[in-house]
């Protein structure tokens, strides 16, 4: 049966079961996470407004890897990320540690490409970060997450709108880490970071992956971010053009094929 004709399958039958035993499952997932792929995507297609945006994608992402989803503008990178996050409907099946997304929400975190908010809005960094969890988080725990991304605790009482683009990006990552996620999704994480900040940022992601065993999935069209950081790449242009280990898959020829002369994708 072709994926496009398949019934939308983003709420499988065992989802409610998963939710009912959420705490037990989360504990068991954390214990046995190495036995399963962090994310498995099977025959996933996405139609938005009657347009085929993604067609029949199948791949699996190992636990603890950094994975880059590459492709030119309009290739469906963000759409795939949003499907994996359960933010848009899709055909096919997406599992996180073998479970439906609704059962493992506490294990995932997301840093959006743009955080569109009124910069004059009165909210401090500490107050905004605290919203990410259902219960109040002590300021010292928030401060320690800020320290992990290289930001001082003095930032806690600073107005969120006063941050630079790079500081904001790091705050959003620190916020995402408050729940100790096992999978971190990032959409164009380097978009607001200057060249000098990119090395720090790459270091943060490496640390998360290698020392804390967090699976990092990021959408990017910045090839320079991929080198030396990313374990696997997924090349996308509506359909899957490549998937595999970076050093095996990401050849000059493949880059040219994926970006078709799009200079934005070559380097930054």
């Amino acid at each position, binding site marked *: 049966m072709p994926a496009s004709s398949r019934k939308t399958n983003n709420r499988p039958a065992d989802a409610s079961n998963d939710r009912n035993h959420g705490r037990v499952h989360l504990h068991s997932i954390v214990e046995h996470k190495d036995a399963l792929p962090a994310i498995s995507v099977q025959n996933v297609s996405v139609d938005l407004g009657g347009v085929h945006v993604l067609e029949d994608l199948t791949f699996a992402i190992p636990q603890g890897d950094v994975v880059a989803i590459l492709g030119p503008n309009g290739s469906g990178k963000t759409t795939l990320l949003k499907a994996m996050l359960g933010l848009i409907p899709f055909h096919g099946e997406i599992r996180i540690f073998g479970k439906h997304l609704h059962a493992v929400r506490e294990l995932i975190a997301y840093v959006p490409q743009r955080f569109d908010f*009124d910069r004059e*809005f009165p909210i401090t960094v500490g107050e905004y970060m605290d919203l990410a969890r259902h219960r109040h988080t002590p300021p010292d725990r928030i401060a320690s997450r800020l320290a992990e991304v290289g930001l001082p605790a003095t930032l806690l009482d600073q107005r969120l709108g006063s941050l630079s683009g790079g500081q904001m990006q790091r705050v959003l990552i620190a916020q995402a880490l408050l729940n100790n996620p096992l999978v971190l999704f990032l959409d164009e994480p380097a978009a607001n970071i200057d060249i000098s900040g990119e090395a720090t940022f790459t270091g943060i992601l490496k640390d998360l992956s290698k020392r804390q065993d967090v699976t990092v999935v990021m959408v990017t069209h910045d090839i320079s971010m991929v080198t030396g950081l990313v374990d696997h790449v997924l090349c996308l242009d509506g359909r899957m053009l490549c998937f595999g280990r970076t050093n095996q898959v990401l050849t000059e020829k493949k880059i040219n094929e994926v970006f078709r002369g799009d200079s934005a994708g070559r380097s930054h």
Partner: protein
Amino acid sequence: MPVIFEMLSYPFMQRAFASGLVLAALLAALGIFVTIRKMSFFSDGIAHSSLAGIAIAVISGLAPLPVALTWALIVALIIWRLERSTRLPSDTLIGVFFTASMALGVVLMSLSRGYQPELLSYLFGSILSIQTRDLLTIAVIAALVMIWLILSFRQLTYLSLSEDNAAVSGINVPVQTAALYVALSLATVLGVKILGIVLVSALIVIPPAAGRAMTGSFRGYVVAALVLAEIMMVAGLTVSYLYDLPSGATIVLIGTALFFLAAGGRWLRTVLTA
């Protein structure tokens, strides 16, 4: 001072203060989310839509407040549903329902002959004519909305600032959005009784707008908006009593003065610290 005691000795003034203080706090608290989500047109639209509910009540001899509340609730849920199913911008949907509902109200009112005091009181508000029955309706609905608001405050704040992140964190965004629409439509119609269809948005928009000029933290913002709403209500009612002015319009003008004071204070702080 004696004149203040005299004012508070009248039962109609006691009811006006009681209902005004409760609704000022409720509308300002909801107004915080209205301003974050840039949906002040929604409350304006709901207020105007309630005219059809009031007209239905007037021509059928029913109590206007419950019918207007029910009507506004239906309109709010239809807008929410259509937003999700048609992907039309909410201001377009609100514009359609606001004008259609208002037009229906005008047509229905034209079918009812003679002078319509109820219509005028809902157009411009009549806080001094609040009856004990109205006060009870306001108290019960305001208490229910306030309890929901307190329980959902963190979730509402997060989803208003970052809907995708809120959804990923497990917040049921469609349900919370529908609940916000319902709460806002109920509170707006209760506010219509006080300030009228034309002016009720002032209680939703002005206190949060003035409050954000006074603080850099969210906690401070919430406190400032609530305190300013109560000052607006108490000062507005008192001044309107002392100088025999229309109470709804006086409340709005006092609120506007507070807004300019807060904005001026912010400008002064910026100049002094520059």
